[in-house]
């Protein structure tokens, strides 16, 4: 495909729609920086537009620039009309795609939008073989299906994915859920401002509990134990987030949590010298405790050992898992 810039025109911005139209794929962006740039140095690269069947113009490339100009109160914008130069919708879509590909990284919603638009013009096999690698995606039909499913998520969830506020792994879990669960889980993740790791833990615990107890997320999260955490005025938001995860963990791993608590209590009951600490495998799989002593010279070490030796409560430290 050979690109020709086409004819220069002044596009009437008032007659140009605010939606991205059939060719552009920008999603979840912030216009502030672009507005500032245009304010300072003007529009350097004119957008590409093409006349549609209704006689108005669709933006082929430069959708964000058009929106920024509108936000700055401009009435028209110098653009290149590529109606003839890029005669088919596929050529226009590809022009938009390759222009973006060369200059920036797509977010996951943009990848989904592009794959969806490509589907109208390109066979699935070609999308898998040629386009998905360009988007750094594996050439799997399952991956393609997943990205297309993202477009069926609630707008608020799509926005969060576009802004990379929720991880793609969490999005994978969300697309497989009932709408009710999807919304509730997203609200909680949003409310508790979980980072990616916390989001994954949260979703994993809830999914495990749902399968084990046949209990959907909306029912689970309206249980008293969770409401209590959320209504506790003494907890700030991060503390609430951690408390919710801990409540879920206790529910998911009751025996492990109980054993961990017992060991933690036993260890913390020992008045260790300041320079000594006792460590153990948090999953209690390794049967051994580990003693760590910080010292500057041998005398310090001997001193710490003799103080440890004098501690009667060391003998009460139980074998892991037995409690004895």
């Amino acid at each position, binding site marked *: 495909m050979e690109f020709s810039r086409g004819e220069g025109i002044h596009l009437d911005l008032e007659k140009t729609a605010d939606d991205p139209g059939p060719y552009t794929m920008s999603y979840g962006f912030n216009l502030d920086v672009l507005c500032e740039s245009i304010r300072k140095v003007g529009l350097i690269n004119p957008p590409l537009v093409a006349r549609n069947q209704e006689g108005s113009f669709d933006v082929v490339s430069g959708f964000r620039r058009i929106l920024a100009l509108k936000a700055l109160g401009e009435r028209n914008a110098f653009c290149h009309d590529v109606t003839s130069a890029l005669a088919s919708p596929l050529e226009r879509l590809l022009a938009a795609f390759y222009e973006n590909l060369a200059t920036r990284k797509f977010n996951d919603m943009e990848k989904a939008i592009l794959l969806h638009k490509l589907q109208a013009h390109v066979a699935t096999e070609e999308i898998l*073989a040629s386009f998905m690698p360009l988007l750094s995606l594996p*050439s*799997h039909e399952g991956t393609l299906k997943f990205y297309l499913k993202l477009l069926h998520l609630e707008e608020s969830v799509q926005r969060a994915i576009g802004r990379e506020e929720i991880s793609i792994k969490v999005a994978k879990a969300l697309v497989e859920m009932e709408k009710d669960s999807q919304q509730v889980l997203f609200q909680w993740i949003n409310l508790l401002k979980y980072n990616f790791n916390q989001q994954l833990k949260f979703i994993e615990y809830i*999914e*495990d509990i749902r*399968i084990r107890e046949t209990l959907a997320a909306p029912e689970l999260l309206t249980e008293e134990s969770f409401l209590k955490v959320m209504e506790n005025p003494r907890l700030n938001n991060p503390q609430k987030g951690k408390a919710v995860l801990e409540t879920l963990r206790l529910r998911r*791993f009751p025996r*492990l949590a109980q054993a961990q608590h017992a060991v933690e209590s036993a260890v913390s009951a020992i008045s260790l010298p300041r320079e000594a600490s006792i460590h153990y*495998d948090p999953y*209690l799989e390794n049967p051994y405790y580990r003693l760590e002593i910080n010292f500057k010279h041998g005398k310090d070490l001997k001193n710490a050992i003799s103080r440890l030796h004098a501690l009667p409560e060391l003998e009460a430290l139980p074998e892991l898992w037995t409690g004895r």
Partner: protein
Amino acid sequence: MNFKIKKAVLEKDAENYPFAQRAVERLQCFSSVRATDGLPPKGDDEFDLDKETLRLLPFPGQLLKPCPGTREYLCCGYQILNIGTNCPLNCSYCILQAYFNQPSLRVFVNVEQQLEGIGKALHISGRKIFRIGTGEFTDSLALDPIVKWTQVLPSFVAEHENVVLEFKTKTVSIEGLLSSTYRDRIVVSWSLNSPSIAATEEHGAPSIRKRLEAARTCQREGFTLGFHFDPLIEHPSWKDEYARTIDVLDHFVDPSKVIWISLGCLRYMPSLKGVIRKRFPESHILDGEFVPGLDGKMRYIKPVRAEMYSFMKEKLGQWGMERGVYLCMESRDVWQKALGWSPENSEGLSDYLDRRAASAFALP
């Protein structure tokens, strides 16, 4: 056979092997065979394991390798003869779902050629006993009606006095074995589970009763048997459920002719969880309390493992299996708690099983 091969593919360089030619002759009655350029198939779906396609191909590497055990847990010192990968059965817990990055059932057609070199290596090694199995990366017998491993491997065993070969299966495809004249140093083993796990999680596998009927036939025909309760899965009424399987075992099998029974609780690589959730969304096998083990695999918390092993040991002892019960990839402290003794290390476990083999087959 309880499964369908819809397509068979003779991959590049496979056609010259007699093993492949014989398999092709058997295949032509029910599926198509075509040569390919050997390129791996384009995966349409990362979760599609393409279990209906059989690929015949030579394996470029070493076919005999030690079991990839880890230092952290006791390993039995088994040798894996890699005759093929993937399996036509569809068990929800199968580790192979996340282990291999190539779909389809793959059968290696250069086994006969490699056996010659393997035999020489075993001969000069000086080691008394090699316990070799073919059931780690595939089911040992599921594809035997097509590929006839049982026509190739027993004669190899007969020629090498320090080899004990174990066919490990969940199927009832024993015709090949029965038609063979070899019995010495051959163990036929069945993987067993509770009746409900067999029915709900071991898709495509015969029932426990059918497996044990096949075991009885083999035992009557002079084969030494083994059993593997692996994976043991914590599920509602698991004690009653596993006791039921041992009752059926009691009905069909004489414990005095059983060489060994291994026990192993469900464990999986973390990446398998997503595969199981996707491929078997109704499965409850992940309900238990799993933690990262010292080898990186997810395992039940220790007291669960110890309780399950201890229960099984007691029941198997009551059945008559006082000796030969061992744990697969477990820690010494779990051995001690569950079975009341522990081999000091992997070499100790290997020696123990070698002695079982020596005793069962009157080896020096």
